[in-house]
Structure formats: structure tokens, C-alpha cells
């Protein structure tokens, strides 16, 4: 075993200081060290997108980074997005438009879509399909996910007007 390295990072606005073995994947760190099991692990080689999180605001595969590399950085996982009683518009829309079936892929989709909707507040279907092309869903056939993203864009536009 190689020697542990001390890291300090921010996850969902909470500051953590931990000691990690360099080979520990960021995805495993989030799940096993911090107990944030909303980040799901599918393929563990960067194909399925289930473990997508935001790293300094950008979508990344958390299975393709080591926890030690997150030292000094800021992470957002699905747990930091909304609460049960106060869902993020994207979460709400996935629920309402039936973008969720088994739910395994959902956190990865939602986190990938957050910066996308910030940059493209009014996306068309093709742009949405491109935006989610790095995330695999084996239940929905994607149509309801596309519907959910459109609904979320509408909700977020309405929120901005208020």
C-alpha cells in the first residue's frame, strides 16, 4: 500500500479534510468516505456517465479521477442540489415528466445538465440529445428525459422572471 495523502476539499458547500490512499477513485471517496451514495457507479471506466458530478462547476466522470486530485477543489453531487421538500427544478421536472424510472442514471444526468442549462437556457431537442450523449439510461428510451429537460428549462425561465 502506498502512503496516504492529506487532502482538503469542499463537497456540497461542506469542507472536508481527509487522508486518502492515492489509488482511491473520487467516486469511491464520495460514496465510502463521505457516505454520499447518490453518486452511482455503473461501468467504472468512463462510458456510462452514472458517476457524473460537478468539479469546479464542470461535469466530470468521478470514476476517472483520483480523490487525491480533488485537493483544493469544489465538488457538487446530487445531495447538494435540492432537498426532498425543495427539489431543484431539474429534479422536479424529471419527476413530473417521467424522466426517472429505476433512477440509477438520474443523478449523473441531472448534474451533467446543470451547467448545460446555464449556458443554454432555451435548448432545442437536438441540443438536449447532444448534451446527454455521455449518459446512458437503460429504462426510459431518453424521450421522457428530453421532455424533462424542456420542462426544466421552462421552469427555470419562469423562476428567473419572478
Amino acid at each position, binding site marked *: 500500500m502506498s502512503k496516504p495523502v492529506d487532502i482538503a476539499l469542499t463537497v456540497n458547500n461542506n469542507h472536508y479534510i481527509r487522508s486518502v490512499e492515492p489509488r482511491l477513485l473520487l467516486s*469511491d471517496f464520495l460514496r465510502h468516505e463521505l457516505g454520499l451514495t447518490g453518486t452511482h457507479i455503473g461501468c467504472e471506466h468512463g462510458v456510462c456517465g452514472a458517476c457524473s458530478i460537478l468539479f469546479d462547476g*464542470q461535469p466530470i466522470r468521478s470514476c*476517472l479521477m483520483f480523490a487525491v486530485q480533488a485537493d483544493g477543489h469544489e465538488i457538487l453531487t446530487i445531495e447538494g442540489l435540492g432537498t426532498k421538500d425543495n427539489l431543484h427544478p431539474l429534479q422536479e421536472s424529471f419527476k413530473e415528466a417521467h424522466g426517472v424510472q429505476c433512477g440509477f442514471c438520474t443523478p449523473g444526468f441531472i448534474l451533467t445538465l446543470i451547467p448545460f442549462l446555464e449556458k443554454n437556457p432555451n435548448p432545442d431537442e437536438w441540443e438536449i440529445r447532444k448534451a446527454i450523449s455521455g449518459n446512458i439510461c437503460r429504462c426510459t428510451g431518453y424521450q421522457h428525459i428530453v421532455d424533462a429537460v424542456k420542462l426544466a428549462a421552462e421552469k427555470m425561465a419562469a423562476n428567473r422572471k419572478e
Partner: protein
Amino acid sequence: MKPAPFEYFAPTTIDEALVHLAEYGYDAKVLAGGQSLIPMMNFRLAQPSVIVDINKINELSYIRANEDGGLRIGAMARHNQVEHSSLIADRAALIFEAMPHIATVQVRSRGTFGGSIAHADPSAELAAVSVALEGSFLLRNQRGERWVPANEFFVGLFTSVLEPDELLIEAKFPPLPERTGCALVEVARRSHDFALVGVAAVVTLDKDNLCQRVRLILLSVGDGPVEAHQAAEMLKGKELTAESIRAAAETAAKKDIDPGSDIHASAEYRRHLAGVLSRRALVKAYDRARGDG
């Protein structure tokens, strides 16, 4: 699966990184974006005993205009940085065109220009495009540095001339001559998949609209980027017509490449794609060189 244990270094300067590479050489792997290395480590196809993580070397993350009208890209410029750079769009339209083909948005957040080059994957768009644009790479070790032209850098399957103690520092691209058009086309099974075949074309016309120079580089059809020399030779000094382009594309597919079969595509299908895509790339590049594209 999980990676095997390794010793970890995260230098903050190039010099410091070179010290680690000089000391550990063959046992060490440089970790850039990690989007190819970490999957291989997760599968334990790669089990380096030392990782030299260069993500903290901020001095490698640049995209700069060069005085000669070309540009320089630091090894740690990330794909999404290149993808959204107006300088790249202005001075290297071919790189700009390649970016959306590279993996997924999540991978482009982490993956780096230098990492893609050093990995020397035969299906890498940036490798083919670097050869097509006559780029060169700056390699440095503790003893000094050297420039290697892109067409001499890739020497085999996942193999380059990069020595174990060398670090890729930057890629440099000369300005394109006037009346030059570029195009990259590819076919992949899904939008972010490795290309089954891809073709990069760079066409320069003289004042009479004759083809002064053409470079046709194919990806995913060999051990590295493959230059279609015979096809290019056929077009030199000629007028580019539907007929001459079709004939050159056919030569590229039949004579210039020797693709293999795998689970994704047969050699025969790859040859077919190479012909169709070479034609499309040449037509596009030609139209752009004339200013119609």
C-alpha cells in the same frame, strides 16, 4: 475494478516533474487528464508503480497566438478549453472542428491536448489533425528539449517517440497558407464513440485554382494516423473535380491503408468508409479553400 497501488507525486513545476521522471523512468506514468490512463488502471491493464500527476502544473494550460500567425497549445490545455477558444476557431479551424467529436462532455472537461497526443491512440482525432496541420511537439527531459514533427512522433500502436523521462510540453502549429481549406469527417456508432474511420483533409489551391498541396490523414485504420500519400500525389497540380477527387479517395481506401477487423467493424467496411469519407473530406476542404465552404 480498482487501480493497483502506486506512489503518487503531484509536482507544481515542469522541472520538478522532470526530476520524478528522470528518477522513475519506465516505472512511472504521467497523469494528465487521466481519461484514458485511469480506465486502463481501473481495468489493471496499466499498473504503473509511480504516478506523476501534472495537473498542478499551471504553466502548461495555455493556448497562445504565435508571432508567425500560428499557435501554441500547452500540453495541459483541456479539451473544453480548446473547444471554446476563439483563437483556435480563428487559427486552427480543423482542430476546432475536431473537438466535438472527442468523447463526451464529461471527458472533455478533464482530457487534455497533450494527453491525447502522448497516448497515441490510432483513433485519436487530435493525433490525425496534428499531422494534417503539420504541427510539432516540444518534448523535454532533464538533459534538454527537442521538437518532433507530428508525422514523426507517432511510431506504432499507442507508441510514440516520447521517452520515459520526457514530458510533452506543447504543440505548435504553423499558420496555414492562403487559399487553404480543412475538413474533418468521421463515422462513429454513437456520437461520442471512437471513430470507426475518420479523415482529415487539408487542401491548398494556387491562383489558378489548381491543387498546390493536399494532406489526407486517416484515423482508426492503422497503428497511428495514416497519411494517404498516393492519393495526395494523384491530386497535386491537378484541378479538383468530382472525378479526380473520387479517384483519389478510392486510392486512399484501396492502396494507402491496410485497416484491420475488430468487433466494431470489418476491414472491408473500414475500407468502404475510408473511400466515402476521404471523398467527403476532400470536397469539403476544397470548397473551403475556394471560400465556398
